[in-house]
């Protein structure tokens, strides 16, 4: 069989696979439809070029297979053709780049009404901190971290007292309300990634990184760690629930604030001291 | 070499020369000896190494929150009970520049095939380099034993100060030391007249030639050049 047929089959197979694939992205649950659209646009432009180039190859392979005595064309260059191709490609690139950059500029600019959510990662798990009534997160310092103060909140920062601490890998957020994810890590790089939200960012020890999104579909979503962080990387999961207003409120009311936690520890200390004193 | 320079004078100069040289056959760097071309490209690569060191230093220094120690005080030297800032570093700088000057003269006399003066200036250069390394050793021991500066921390502020200091000056000092060794070897060779007789090298079995001195010169000036940047960025900043 002529090899051209096999190459042709590869191209057709690729297109068919793309059309019938059962493996496709998860239903989007955030405002980042722009990312999906840009991907689709890239598919159209770049995929089109892929098909054209491959079909051209297949055509050449059929048409110009070796024949004794045939003369190949002798044409070292063709300025006009090369110019046209360069500009066409440049145009294609620009068409891809422009929407990409627009989406990126939205991605790095958080809307002012976003709720701050601190995601704190460690080997290998997640916990979260939400601002309290004052709407602000207290400042932190890794060196402050202790059993009582798992987030290392600065004790003299008044904003920190009412912060809501969620010492579990389950996070709830409100539908249609933008959240700004502030990422911290106490040890190595991690990455807070929910495929349905599309967005992701590394959490880097020593600095705070961020991204934002607006969840728009109620449901339960799995958090994956998307930056290699040691042997437990693959098991570093969490859960995000997108709730409606009411459920979110209920959940929030059950959570402890930093002062609650501190008070609890104070109490424990007092108890222990009392016991010691009794003895 | 001089013959090739005379070839070069008949080639187009300036930017015209640039295109005609790259468009020509056989050599792109007209009249440049293989070894010399190789040294230049090596130095280019080495420049990237030192640049990466200095860029990392700059990035870390810009982003540490802890106070960066004040080099002018850290590196002060007591003269009669008065601390003179950066005195030792200033002397080291002058010593290295001096050795660069003697190296330039050694190269000059090498090309004039004046083996005595050439050898002598090489020797001076080597001694200059040795002095530099000696002073650096003194400085290191002073910092380590008297000031308590360690690669992992120091009493003055940001821990990275010591880390970068030892790493960068250490890497530079290694370059100087290697240069000194070669300077001694070459000065002996010059005195012995190897470059005149074209004696074959021990390892490579290539003929000795006075070009070797220019090549070594490039290396030595480069070491000096790097120090200019270290002096400005590390000590004066």
């Amino acid at each position, binding site marked *: 069989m002529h090899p051209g047929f096999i190459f042709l089959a590869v191209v057709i197979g690729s297109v068919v696979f793309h059309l019938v694939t059962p493996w496709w992205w998860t239903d989007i649950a955030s405002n980042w439809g722009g990312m999906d659209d840009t991907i689709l646009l890239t598919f159209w432009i770049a995929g089109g070029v892929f098909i054209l180039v491959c079909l051209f190859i297949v055509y050449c392979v059929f048409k110009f297979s070796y024949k004794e005595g045939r003369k190949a064309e002798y044409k070292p260059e063709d300025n006009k053709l090369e110019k046209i191709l360069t500009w066409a490609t440049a145009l294609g690139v620009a068409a891809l780049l422009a929407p990409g950059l627009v989406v990126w500029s939205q991605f790095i600019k958080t809307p002012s009404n976003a709720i701050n959510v601190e995601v704190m990662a460690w080997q290998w798990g997640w916990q979260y901190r939400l601002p309290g009534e004052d709407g602000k997160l207290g400042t932190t310092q890794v060196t402050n971290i202790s059993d009582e103060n798992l987030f290392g909140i600065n004790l003299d920062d008044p904003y920190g007292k009412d912060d809501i601490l969620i010492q579990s890998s389950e996070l709830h957020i409100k539908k249609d309300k933008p959240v700004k994810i502030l990422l911290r890590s106490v040890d190595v790089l991690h990455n807070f990634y929910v495929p349905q939200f599309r967005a992701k960012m590394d959490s880097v020890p020593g600095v705070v990184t961020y991204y934002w999104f607006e969840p728009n579909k109620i449901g339960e979503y799995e958090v994956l760690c998307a930056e290699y962080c040691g042997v437990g990387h693959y098991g570093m999961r969490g859960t995000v629930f997108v709730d409606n207003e009411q459920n979110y409120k209920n959940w929030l009311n059950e959570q402890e604030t930093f002062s609650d936690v501190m008070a609890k520890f104070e109490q424990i200390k007092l108890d222990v001291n009392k016991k010691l004193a009794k003895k | 070499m001089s013959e090739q320079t005379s070839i070069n004078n008949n080639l187009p100069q300036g930017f015209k020369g640039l295109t005609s040289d790259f468009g020509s056959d056989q050599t792109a760097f007209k009249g440049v000896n293989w070894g010399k071309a190789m040294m230049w490209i090596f130095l280019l690569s080495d420049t990237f190494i030192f640049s990466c060191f200095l860029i990392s230093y700059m990035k870390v220094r810009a982003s540490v929150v802890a106070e960066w120690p004040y080099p002018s005080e850290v590196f002060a030297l007591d003269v009669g009970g008065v601390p003179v800032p950066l005195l030792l570093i200033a002397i080291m700088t002058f010593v290295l520049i001096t050795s660069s000057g003697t190296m330039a003269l050694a190269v000059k006399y090498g090309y004039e095939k004046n083996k005595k003066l050439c050898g002598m200036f090489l020797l001076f250069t080597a001694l200059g380099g040795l002095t530099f390394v000696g002073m650096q050793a003194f400085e290191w021991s002073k910092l380590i034993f008297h000031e308590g500066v360690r690669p992992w921390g120091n009493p003055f502020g940001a821990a990275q100060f010591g880390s970068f200091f030892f790493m960068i000056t250490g890497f530079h000092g290694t370059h100087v030391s290697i240069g000194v060794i070669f300077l001694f070897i070459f000065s002996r060779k010059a005195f012995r007249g190897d470059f005149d007789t074209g004696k074959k090298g021990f390892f490579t079995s290539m003929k000795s030639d006075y070009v070797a001195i220019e090549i070594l010169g490039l290396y030595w000036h480069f070491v000096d*050049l790097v120090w200019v940047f270290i002096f400005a960025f590390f000590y004066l900043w």
Partner: protein
Amino acid sequence: MVMAETKKEQQTTTHKIGIYLWIWGLLFVLSFFSYMVDWFQFQGLLRWTLIVTFMLLKAGLIMAIFMHLFWERYALVNALLWPMTAIACFICLMVAEGKYTVFTRLFYFVVGG
């Protein structure tokens, strides 16, 4: 002055000893000047400009005269200098990155937001 003298000398690779002594002297003077910047405790932008200027002048002199780059053909000179644009780009971006890092550190660990 120096230029005029050196142009004439372009004929041979060996140069009059004068030029080396000249440059040697200049390097001394420039090093002395940069030392003085520290001595007089200039601060801020002034210090910054002076240090960099003296540094670049010294580097330029060493490369041009001591390393004979001034007499080399443009092919070599260009081959050596163009790659420095990559370094320049790296420097600029790392300055920006350093500033961004320190900003986030101060903002989230000290100032609060």
